[in-house]
């Protein structure tokens, strides 16, 4: 983390655009991961699932990073001029002028605050509910959790896709894709679950979660497998239509990505699809820690690269390599993330006492 910090400052001095683009890359990446904790909890609450209670403390710990990533993303506002072309629209650019009612700085800032406000409110509400439940017990808290999860899921569906338009898609303000929000969301889900899985494995290996067994790993593995296919499906749906119709307005998006970053372009498919797909195909692999770690690593790196490929070609017109700035920032934020997560995990029993489904998770077979 310290080394990362140093590299970051080096970056800031040398190149503004590169600094801010990697700030956006890493800030957004860790926002997604932090947010996936809340999504994880609310999905399982709404699906009445029992197995996840064995690990539900981990997503709750991940969420704790959300306020920090809010600060990071708000700091990004200092760099909007360098990143977002729409902040200084040229005369005669009718398309962008037509979009100014949505893409203008004040509204952009308001929306950003609104998204984070909503996400943090619901995330902390869910954490507080489970803290209360631990102290007092009773079903009332779980009912509350269901209520808040339901509202959150609906709001999240809207805000998450709007946030991805705002922060990522508007880097290329002339271009748009209608499934962009979903595309980002699918990435959020897999990379979040990969991080959760890695944390669970780490804690399990060090004896902090002795109640975890193969069945829980099997379910995490199924998620990784399924959602990496889902991500690929969306990736391909967007690509095939644009490739096939071959309309210049749309292909401008893929042209620089395929021409300037040919290796990266196919590498992310390998990392995010081929590896998890082949490694996790069999039932036994999903129950095996080693295979899970391999595919989690591949997914975590792959989705970071995927975000890089969404951001960098839009900001720079020529090819730029991944440099100190990106990696340094990733180390820095990653370190911070680890610090926050482990601080919130340490010194506690990692089991949600009094959760109504707690008993089910011990007897769970999958």
């Amino acid at each position: 983390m310290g080394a990362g910090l140093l590299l970051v400052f080096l970056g800031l001095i040398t190149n503004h655009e590169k600094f801010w683009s990697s700030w956006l890359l890493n800030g957004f990446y860790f926002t997604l991961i932090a947010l996936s904790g809340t999504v994880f909890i609310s999905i399982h609450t709404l699906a009445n699932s029992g197995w996840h209670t064995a690990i539900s403390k981990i997503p709750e710990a991940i969420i704790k990073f959300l306020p920090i990533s809010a600060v990071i993303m708000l700091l990004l506002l200092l760099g909007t001029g360098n990143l977002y072309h729409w902040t200084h629209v040229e005369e005669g650019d009718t398309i962008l002028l037509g979009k100014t009612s949505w893409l203008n700085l004040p509204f952009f800032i308001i929306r950003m605050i609104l998204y984070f406000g909503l996400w943090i409110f619901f995330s902390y509400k869910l954490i507080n509910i489970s803290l209360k439940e631990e102290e007092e017990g009773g079903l009332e808290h779980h009912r509350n959790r269901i209520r808040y999860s339901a509202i959150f899921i609906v709001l999240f569906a809207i805000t998450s896709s709007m946030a991805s338009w705002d922060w990522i898609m508007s880097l290329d303000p002339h271009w748009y894709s209608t499934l962009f929000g979903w595309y980002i969301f699918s990435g959020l889900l897999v990379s979040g679950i990969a991080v959760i899985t890695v944390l669970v494995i780490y804690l399990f290996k060090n004896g902090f979660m002795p109640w975890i067994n193969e069945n829980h790993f099997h379910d995490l593995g199924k998620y990784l497998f399924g959602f990496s296919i889902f991500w690929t499906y969306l990736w391909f749906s967007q690509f095939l239509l644009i490739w096939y119709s071959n309309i210049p307005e749309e292909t401008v998006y893929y042209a620089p990505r395929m021409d300037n970053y040919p290796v990266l372009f196919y590498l992310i498919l390998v990392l995010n699809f081929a590896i998890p797909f082949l490694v996790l195909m069999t039932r036994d692999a999903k129950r095996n820690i080693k295979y899970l770690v391999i595919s989690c690593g591949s997914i975590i790196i792959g989705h970071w690269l995927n975000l890089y490929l969404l951001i960098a070609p839009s900001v720079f017109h020529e090819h730029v390599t991944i440099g100190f700035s990106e990696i340094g920032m990733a180390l820095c934020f990653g370190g911070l993330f680890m610090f926050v997560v482990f601080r919130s995990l340490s010194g506690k029993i990692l089991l949600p006492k009094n959760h109504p489904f707690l008993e089910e998770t011990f007897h769970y077979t999958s």
Partner: protein
Amino acid sequence: MTNKYLHIVFRDEENLFEGIDLLRANDFSIVDVMTPFPVHGLDHKIGLKPSLIPTVGFICGAIGALTGFFFQSWVFTSSWPMNFGGKPFFAFPSFIPVIFEMTVLFSALGMVLAFLYRSKLYPHKECSTEKVPITTDDQFVIKLMKPEGEKLTLLQKLVNELKVKLDNPEIAISEKLTFFNNKIVALVPLAFILCFSSCKNNKEQPGYEYMPDMVYSRSFEYYSANPLDKSKSMAKVPPVGSIPRSFTPYPYPNTKDGYEQAGKEWINPLSSNDIYIDEGKKLFELYCVYCHGQKGEANGILVEKQKFPPPPSFSSDILKELPAGKIFHSITYGKNLMGPHASMLSYQERCKVVLFVQSLQKKL
């Protein structure tokens, strides 16, 4: 048959698991366990080996994917190369959906067939496993070889203990399991009566409709009777001589006379210049080269692969003097083996192609 086996009936799967453990611990040989729904972990409990079905699914899926890939590659690059929207012949991204479907189809069919083969099920074959209807309703049954003498008493003792331990008096040993759930059997005639009572003679009348909701529209249907002119249909033929928007009519009919007349009268609205000829060339390369070849010398890829008889070359004596009107006519309506192109090329585009074809005639 039945007296070779014994059955133990349970009410829920928790008790079932305890029962299995107990029986296995005491060396009874369990033949089968029948349940109304798939119970997680059961196969492991009764010591079955993991099923081979997933492997079959994988292999068949892989075969399907390869078949899909190679078949499409062969068709589109070698057997019958055709241009689709200016894409390369080997258009891999557009193969993927078909490859995906083939994978799913092959693996699903493969697994079903493997399953039928493994369970020795095929048409006209009596099912060899016993039918125990209650297990399709709400009960769980362990089927085991009927033990002899001492072991039988041991079994009875164990089951009685289990009843007490689990506080579940419904656990029972039984030799013959032919019970049908009488309540449900009684419902069968009732269901028949209901079915038949809903039939009606009048075919126009659908009988009782559960939720007609928005089935009936207030607006007229295309083919409903027209109250204004008493005709059978609401849809009307457009008045004679009306044309769609931005459509240029072509007055010559698709006949021999029309062909000759077009040759004499038709004048290209576009005058020949390099830009039009160039655009015509691009369109020609998209739609015509497969038969006519780059320079109109009848050496297109389909002709060379002998999928198609060679058309006359534009530079040949027959076509050298062909007037613009006949060229346009043939492109619009097609000629003998050549298909019509009016639906692919607009009027303007056909005019440009004519200019290009003429340039081929003159050049040679």
